[in-house]
């Protein structure tokens, strides 16, 4: 009797938990329909009042005040020193506070001035002249001058303090660029050779010399702990739109507006509009979804499986969904083209398999057998695009002549037959020496997306009569196989690339790169023979980095994509599409594929926020000429 009573109580509680839910209808074809048309404002321009070079936003004028709450997954930032960051979250969190000289145009992807007023590149492509803004200040009121820029580059970046990845990427033939102060507001960079990727490096943050210099003098060990997450928020002196207000470990990072920021709106009021920017640190994707639904978050990145449900909720909810297009990730299938021997004198790859993998017809046959469309539909819930190129689909260097194609088993069979493969009565595939075609395919266990791709690739290849042993293995073991022991046949992995700079992929594409997955050369094999197409790609990457004009570079990078497309050392599968949701109360939202949702965080405002005291305080240079 009591049991019944209690059961009723428990049921009541359960029922409260599973209350109404919006019915999911018509789940497919939500991905690419975007009814809202975004009208981008004109580009920001520099205007001068009272000797101060402001950056003026051309976006509609909004209300001041309010908070924007976003999230970051994981354990939060490890440091707030933008020169020490080794992970994405730390970089994002520290770069909010420090502006770079240049930034990337969110639509065209071209470099444009930010903290710099303007820049020019000499005709020989070696000299970069940067003009700084007059009258712009750090958050503590000290002026930002050429000394800060020269100090940042000479004493931090080029001196190899903190994270050296920028320094490593701009060493040309063992030589580093140099930086010179021309006057208080002019800086000149000189690269030893013309080196196009250098311009992107100028978006690196600039450090306040009067704060960083004492730390730099104490040496690199001290610098590694400088501005760590234990630093008091008051001790940060910054140039970005927002400044750290509070960091609560494993809970949140709170930023407040920087009153000295140099961007103004068309009225001449100082931006940003928002009082606060909050990043909640959430442990996993599920918690992020719960927090968004409980209205603790204002924006969320939606995973493929969630998009349909959110799309159905959208019409009667307080958020809007934006499709930001394919992301920079490239999921690929690679075969081991290695034909060398290890220390013990054994081949890394079984010689009979080497014959298959080195045969371009075999690689193409595999490529034609893969049903990318089916994978996008079933694995990414339709939220993705089939991928055929080495550069990601949103790259400004994408070779648009490389056309997608459908799965074609007949073509695969034809190619295999051309190379002497044959089928027995049960449809099993044999090579011309009579060996059964059977190999292992690896991916990292635990990544459900890659595991699902593996299962589908296995089925697709078995339609050709191949025997595929699909083995998801632990991530670390897989990495060890890929970069050290090299004993693998086929692998499904992914890389993230840059949509702006193909040279970032040189470690993958160049034949002596540290991540040249399909034909990894260990130290002892550095001089081993290259395939012809590898040699050509090496040449193209060297030329591409040294050319300065975008059009010239595009030609080289187009050709490398063409080679990968023809030779198929990497068989690309698909790129997931980035779908984000943001609350309707936020205005001036101009999402782009390259910049994401919040690239213009200074301009984003809330319609009618709570009355805010900041509005009265914002000093406005009067008498501006509005266009």
């Amino acid at each position, binding site marked *: 009797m009591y049991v019944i009573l*209690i059961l009723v109580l428990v049921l009541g509680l359960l029922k409260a938990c*599973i209350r109404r839910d919006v019915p999911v209808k018509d789940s497919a074809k939500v991905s690419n329909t975007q009814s809202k048309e975004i009208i981008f404002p004109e580009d920001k321009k520099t205007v001068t009042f009272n000797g101060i070079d402001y950056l003026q936003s051309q976006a509609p004028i909004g209300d001041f005040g309010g908070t924007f709450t976003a999230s970051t997954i994981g354990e939060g930032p*490890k440091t707030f020193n933008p020169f020490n960051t080794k992970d994405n979250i730390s970089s994002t969190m520290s770069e909010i506070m420090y502006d770079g000289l240049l930034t990337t145009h969110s639509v065209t992807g071209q470099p444009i001035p930010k903290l710099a007023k303007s820049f020019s590149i000499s005709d020989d492509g070696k000299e970069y002249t940067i003009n700084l803004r007059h009258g712009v200040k750090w958050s503590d009121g000290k002026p930002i001058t050429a000394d800060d820029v020269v100090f940042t580059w000479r004493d931090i970046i080029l001196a190899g303090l903190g994270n*050296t*990845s920028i320094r490593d990427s701009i060493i040309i033939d063992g030589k580093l660029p140099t930086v010179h102060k021309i006057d208080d507001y002019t800086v000149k960079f000189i690269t030893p050779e013309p080196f196009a990727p250098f311009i992107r490096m100028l978006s690196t943050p600039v450090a306040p010399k009067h704060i960083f210099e004492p730390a730099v003098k104490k040496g690199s060990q001290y610098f*590694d702990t400088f501005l760590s*997450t234990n630093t008091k928020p008051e001790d940060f002196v910054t140039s970005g739109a927002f400044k750290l207000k509070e960091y609560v*470990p494993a809970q949140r990072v709170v930023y407040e507006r920087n009153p000295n920021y140099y961007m103004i709106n068309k009225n001449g009021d100082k931006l940003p509009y928002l009082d606060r920017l909050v990043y909640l640190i959430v442990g996993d994707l599920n918690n992020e979804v719960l927090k968004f639904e409980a209205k*603790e978050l204002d924006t969320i990145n939606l995973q493929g499986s969630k998009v349909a449900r959110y799309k159905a909720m959208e019409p009667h909810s307080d958020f809007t969904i934006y499709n930001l297009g394919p992301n920079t990730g490239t999921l690929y299938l690679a075969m081991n083209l290695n034909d060398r021997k290890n220390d013990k004198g054994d081949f890394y790859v079984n010689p009979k398999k080497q014959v298959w993998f080195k045969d371009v017809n075999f690689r193409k046959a595999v490529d034609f057998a893969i049903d990318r469309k089916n994978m996008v539909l079933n694995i990414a819930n339709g939220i993705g695009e089939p991928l055929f190129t080495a550069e990601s689909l949103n790259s400004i260097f994408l070779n648009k002549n490389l056309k997608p194609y459908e799965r074609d088993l007949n073509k695969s069979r034809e190619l295999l037959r051309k190379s002497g493969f044959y089928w027995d009565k049960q449809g099993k595939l044999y090579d011309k020496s009579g060996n059964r075609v059977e190999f292992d395919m690896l991916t990292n266990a635990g990544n459900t997306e890659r595991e699902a791709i593996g299962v589908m690739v296995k089925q697709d290849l078995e339609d050709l009569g191949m025997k595929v042993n699909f083995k998801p293995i632990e991530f670390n073991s897989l990495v060890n196989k890929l970069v050290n022991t090299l004993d693998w046949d086929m692998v499904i992995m992914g890389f993230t690339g840059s949509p702006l700079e193909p040279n970032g992929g040189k*470690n993958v594409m160049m034949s002596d790169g540290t991540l040249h997955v399909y034909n990894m050369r260990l130290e002892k094999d550095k001089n081993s023979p290259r395939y012809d197409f590898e040699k050509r790609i090496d040449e193209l990457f060297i030329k591409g980095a040294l050319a300065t004009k975008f059009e010239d570079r595009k030609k080289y990078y187009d050709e490398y994509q063409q080679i990968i497309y023809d030779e198929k050392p990497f068989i690309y599968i698909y790129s997931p599409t980035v779908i984000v949701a943001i609350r309707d109360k936020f205005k001036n939202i101009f999402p782009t594929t390259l910049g994401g949702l919040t690239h213009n965080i200074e301009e984003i405002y809330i319609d009618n926020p709570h009355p805010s005291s900041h509005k009265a305080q914002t000093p406005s240079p009067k008498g501006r000429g509005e266009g």
Partner: protein
Amino acid sequence: MEILKYIFKRILQTIPLLIIVSLISFFIIRLSPVDPLAELRLNPSVSKETLEKETQRLGLDKPIIVQYGKWAKSFIKGDLGITSNGEQVSTKLKERIPNTLLLTVVVIFLTWVVGIPLGILAALKWKTPFDRILTVLTSIGMAIPSFFFAVLLLIFAVRTGWFPVGGLTSANFADMGFFSQVKDIAHHLFLPVTVLFTLSLAGLQRQMRANMLDVLDSDYVKFARAKGLSEFKVVYKHALRNAINPLITLLGFEFAGLLSGAALTEYVFQYPGLGRLILEAVLKSDINLVMASLMMGAIMLILGNLIADILLIITDPRIRVKS
């Protein structure tokens, strides 16, 4: 004096124990194929020089036994080393320990304050409707997996909007007055405490009830009753003192669980405690952090047992006589 000597002996015994624990943990972590640099290795923009620098910085280029020696030397000096991100392990732990302690102390306090009286009451009202309702309730409490229960409550919070979804403080916590801050924390603590409380209450209440029933059935209680002592004196002076002894040992284990007992619930509720920190450390094979937390767990367990034993000596004259 006797007790001091006993404590000293016990502390001496723990030294070899700690060495063995540390050796086993260190070697298991290092022999597992987890590579702390795997993520970096697969990042196309990371150069070989950076990888080599990182390998040296983390000491991965030396044999395991040398790595262990280095770790042990600094551990004895009281230096817990740095995490793989270069932060001090001790500051990392210090950030989280108060949060975890807050959660576990509240839970243990509530469990004991509620569980013990309920156990006694249930024993006194044996086989009455009150006892039976409690039995059913505690069965349910013991049967629900904590993970599932926590997720259920989280969904409840999202649907009703009555409680925040995880965390410990609201975003505007720093701007609140003292009383609002206390209220805010209590609001956030409610759900995780409910989960842990339900779970441990059931166990404690049942244990207390069983002990009490045992004692109430013993000869000396019957004798006390026959002697005409008041029921109050029989129960609270004679029976309770004996019934509570086994629970003191339990208290020792509770002490050990102070810092590590709530990891799962912490994870579900995104509670900024040690659980989440250590889980990530294990996944990334952040050796110094993992070792620090394992050693902390071992020391807490030993300490808890020691405290329980000392308390037993104080409360139970029989043990004193034997030793």
